């Protein structure tokens, strides 16, 4: 087994034991990254020089045995909507083609403070709007399991880079499923933390009441390690929750005996892909076999989450993306007067999906339609949140499929935006309720990975990780590697 194929917790031991240096490790990872990159295309920007400099710094820490963390000297990838000081951050948009942030996002600061090494910035749907990474202005990222298929999205490059061993883990962001769905489609672990658990400072905003940053990893233990590094209150983000962040490794290996797992009937519709359905049901049976108690529950308003989302998220986006006006950063297209400059700049800088959502949100917020759309969706949001609150009086976690289908082909869902939106049907209500959820590999459908989604109580990521670890240890799915071949 090559070093780059290992997990963080495996390779960290070798670094600490000085069997290998971070510089050697980083060189091996970068060489592999560059070798497979022409096939997978996970990255918008590769930062080899910075990575080697950070690795040399990490080696000093390791040699001195001072300030060594679980991430010291470990090469990681970062989604290209997290601000990185001095490294171009594009949001996969033409609008930000030349944008070089003057500061780091808090999560990036935290990873650097832990001694991590950043190998590059990963491809994504433009401004995180999409479920296949096809709306990127720059490139089409391929699914390492079948290069003819999409990696999911919007954090598609973050998922494919970890799946193809181009990095030991990555950071993604999730507004309606953008960590969990690509994690499912690429056969890795992805966690969307509770809203407020991880600072959003320096995350380029899409829908501020839904966005959350989270880890994408090769296994569950690595996910707990990453959560320990990035969680916690941040005075720079006023929506960051001031609650203590636990050590996510403490209870990780304590098993699921007596854990109550809710199975919501609304998440197993007849129209679902049969192999996905079977894989997820088998996984739930396995959890039961490990000692968990299965409880049938109902989340009656959750299926309305998608409709509510396509009012709330575009509304927030139309406001957040008003800042791209050709004045302070990003693209400018000249015009005779300022309004013409704005309109030409935004027409040239944004792709079709972003324009669609800006217009949809502007419409939903406009005079005469506000009550019918935006206010109505905010009320439905409360109903959905109450459904989850009620369910969590009876159960500790909830288990569902992550996505209704395995990875699909390029162009298959791009003609009709609504068919693409329906890929997020099982993930979206979780962002609306603000609760945490994790996806982990639980089988194959047509040779492509299937994800099991576990949903938790607010600020109880530790229980999700504990259940996920118990399941993972009883299977081999997380050990399978993609072929990097076309079909």
């Amino acid at each position, binding site marked *: 087994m090559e070093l780059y194929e290992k997990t963080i917790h495996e390779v960290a031991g070798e670094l600490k034991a000085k069997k290998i240096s971070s510089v050697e490790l980083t060189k091996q990872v970068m060489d592999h990254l560059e070798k497979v990159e022409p096939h997978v295309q996970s990255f918008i920007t590769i930062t080899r020089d910075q990575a080697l400099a950070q690795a040399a710094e990490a080696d000093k820490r390791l040699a001195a045995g001072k300030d060594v963390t679980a991430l010291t000297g470990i090469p990681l990838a970062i989604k290209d909507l997290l601000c990185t000081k001095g490294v171009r951050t594009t949001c996969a948009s033409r609008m930000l083609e*030349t944008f070089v942030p003057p500061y780091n996002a808090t999560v990036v600061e935290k990873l650097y403070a832990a001694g991590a090494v950043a190998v590059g910035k990963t491809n994504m749907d433009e401004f995180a709007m999409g479920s296949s990474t096809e709306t990127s202005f720059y490139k089409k990222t391929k699914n390492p399991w079948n290069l003819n298929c999409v990696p999911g999205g919007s954090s598609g490059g973050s998922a494919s880079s970890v799946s193809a061993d181009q990095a030991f883990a990555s950071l993604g962001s999730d507004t309606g499923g953008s960590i969990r769905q690509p994690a499912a489609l690429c056969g890795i672990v992805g966690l969307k933390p509770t809203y407020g658990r991880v600072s959003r400072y320096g995350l380029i905003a899409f829908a501020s009441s839904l966005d959350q940053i989270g880890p994408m990893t090769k296994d569950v233990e690595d996910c707990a390690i990453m959560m320990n590094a990035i969680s916690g209150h941040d005075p720079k983000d006023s*929506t960051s929750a001031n609650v203590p962040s636990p050590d996510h490794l403490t209870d990780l290996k304590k098993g699921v005996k007596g854990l109550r797992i809710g199975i919501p009937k609304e998440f197993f519709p007849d129209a679902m892909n049969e192999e996905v359905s079977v894989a997820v049901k088998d996984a739930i049976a396995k959890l039961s076999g490990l000692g968990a108690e299965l409880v049938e529950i109902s989340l009656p308003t959750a299926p*309305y989450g998608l409709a509510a989302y396509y009012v709330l998220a575009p509304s927030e986006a139309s406001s957040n993306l008003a800042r791209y006006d050709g004045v302070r950063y990003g693209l400018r297209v000249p015009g005779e*007067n300022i309004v013409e400059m*704005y309109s030409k700049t935004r027409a040239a800088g944004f792709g079709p999906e972003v324009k669609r959502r800006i217009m949809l949100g502007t*419409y939903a917020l406009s005079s005469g339609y506000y009550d019918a759309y935006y206010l109505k969706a905010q009320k439905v949001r409360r109903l959905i949140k109450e459904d989850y609150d009620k369910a969590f009086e009876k159960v500790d976690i909830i288990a569902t499929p992550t996505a209704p289908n395995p990875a699909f082909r390029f162009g298959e869902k791009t003609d009709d935006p609504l068919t693409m*939106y329906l890929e997020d049907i099982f993930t979206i209500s979780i962002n609306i309720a603000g609760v945490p959820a994790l996806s982990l590999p639980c089988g194959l459908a047509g040779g492509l990975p299937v994800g099991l989604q576990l949903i938790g109580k607010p600020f109880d990521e530790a229980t999700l990780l504990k259940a996920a670890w118990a399941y993972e240890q009883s299977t081999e799915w997380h050990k399978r590697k993609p072929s990097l071949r076309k079909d």
Partner: protein
Amino acid sequence: MALSEKDVQYVAKLSRLEVTDQEVAKYTQQLANILGYVEQLSKLDTSKVEPMAHVLDMKNVFRPDQPAPSLTQKEVLSNGPEIQSGHFKVPKIM
């Protein structure tokens, strides 16, 4: 609530997006489809439900009003498309 091409032109103007006639036709159809899907929300009775803007039980987050280091003027201006004498320059407004 049927969406017309006129509505889309109006919303594009509000959004400061220059759009061609072909784009207006395409977006009108696509946005109408999405709004048609959203219509299902009317099936839920929300007459006694308070709207929810976000899930956290918090408001008015204050911090002490103490000066702290911030970005330099050079850093702030570093990404500006057109800079003159320490300012962002824009085309004529009036």
